[in-house]
């Protein structure tokens, strides 16, 4: 089976292309699948998280995957961030230190994920261009995204992440993808609401809504994330099942994709030139917190 694969941008169109790939291959079992990337002129590196999740799922059904005819600039990016290491290519050093490597985690790897963010990103000298407050908020945000996948996804195949820093454009993209049950199914099972996939994402980002049940409360992670992205002037995109949700400059936008993604992807884009301190001048005192 040979599948042509085009450019993948960090956008709704990029996700449409990925769900098409999933639709074309989801029934494959014990097949030889060639993904012909001759038409892939650009691939936003953080989208490797969602792309890798789809490919990993295909591997789990014992398919043999080959990525062929990759244009040289794309091959260089995907070798530097370690993505092609899983598909028969050698990884090459990232001399500019702007990649957050592609990696797969298990659901109990919270600490390992935190160490990966610290070592592969926060402690690197290139990050001195970002303010201390922004770096802390970014770090907290990606921990929240990962925790969300751990707590809600019920994924058996893992959690995938990848990021890219563009110092000249003052932009940092980061994505986390899981192969879990998705937000829509989670809302249906735990809250009993039968919403469309894009409506379910919107519901999960609102007010105190949460699908959490049991002794540990929840319902804050996505709100904290959206508040930060709004303050920063960045963008967040969430894809779950066939739902697409984007928050850009404070405005939410939803759409129905042409097919489902087999889990959830959260992808953030932050403005790294933001010099806001994020240190709250709160009047909170230790005595009135409870």
């Amino acid at each position, binding site marked *: 089976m040979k599948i042509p694969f085009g450019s993948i941008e960090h956008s709704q169109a990029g996700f449409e292309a990925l769900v098409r790939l999933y639709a074309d291959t989801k029934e494959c079992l014990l097949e030889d699948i060639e993904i012909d990337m001759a038409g892939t002129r650009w691939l936003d590196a953080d989208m490797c998280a969602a792309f890798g999740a789809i490919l990993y799922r295909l591997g789990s059904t014992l398919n043999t995957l080959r990525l062929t005819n990759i244009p040289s600039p794309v091959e260089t990016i995907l070798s530097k961030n370690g993505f092609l290491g899983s598909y028969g290519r050698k990884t090459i050093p990232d001399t500019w230190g702007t990649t957050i490597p592609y990696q797969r985690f298990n659901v109990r790897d919270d600490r390992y994920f*935190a*160490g990966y963010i610290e070592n592969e990103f926060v402690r690197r000298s290139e990050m001195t261009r970002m303010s201390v407050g922004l770096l802390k908020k970014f770090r*907290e945000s990606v*921990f929240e995204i990962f925790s969300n996948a751990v707590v809600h996804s019920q994924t058996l195949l893992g959690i995938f992440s990848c990021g890219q820093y563009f110092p000249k454009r003052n932009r940092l993209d980061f994505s986390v993808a899981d192969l879990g049950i998705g937000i829509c199914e989670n809302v249906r099972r735990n809250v009993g609401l039968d919403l469309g996939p894009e409506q379910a994402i919107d519901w999960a980002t609102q007010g*105190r809504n949460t699908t959490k049940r049991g*002794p540990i*409360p929840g319902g804050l992670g996505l709100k904290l994330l959206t508040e930060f992205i709004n303050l920063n002037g960045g963008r967040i995109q969430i894809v779950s099942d066939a739902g697409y949700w984007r928050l850009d400059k404070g405005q939410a936008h939803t759409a129905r994709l042409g097919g489902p993604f087999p889990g959830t992807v959260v992808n953030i884009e932050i403005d790294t030139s933001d010099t806001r301190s994020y240190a709250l001048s*709160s009047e909170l005192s230790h005595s009135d917190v409870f």
Partner: protein
Amino acid sequence: MSQGIGLSMFEIVGSPLCVASDDGQKVYERIAAALKEGRSVTLSFLNVTGLTSAFLNAAIGQLYGSFTEEQIRSMLKVEDIQTDDLALLKRVVETAKQYFRNPKRFERVVREALGE
């Protein structure tokens, strides 16, 4: 009067990154055990450099399912916490109070606690 105890999150978690819900559960178990014994607790955030709402929900938020607000307010104190982390903790506490006000969730928590 019974003596209060001090708990270090850094010591319980074994890391400055308090991000995992499972690690929060360990903190919860220590606090809950002390409160059940009628001991007041001072929880130190010294050397903690990363926090998530998932961790704090498990460590502190779930206390509101087992103890009254008055008990928690009078017996639990925090120290060495940065201002923005204190603001996050306050959000977690407010969310937890709201969460346990939902009777359906609360009944389920009680049923689970009783093993029903």
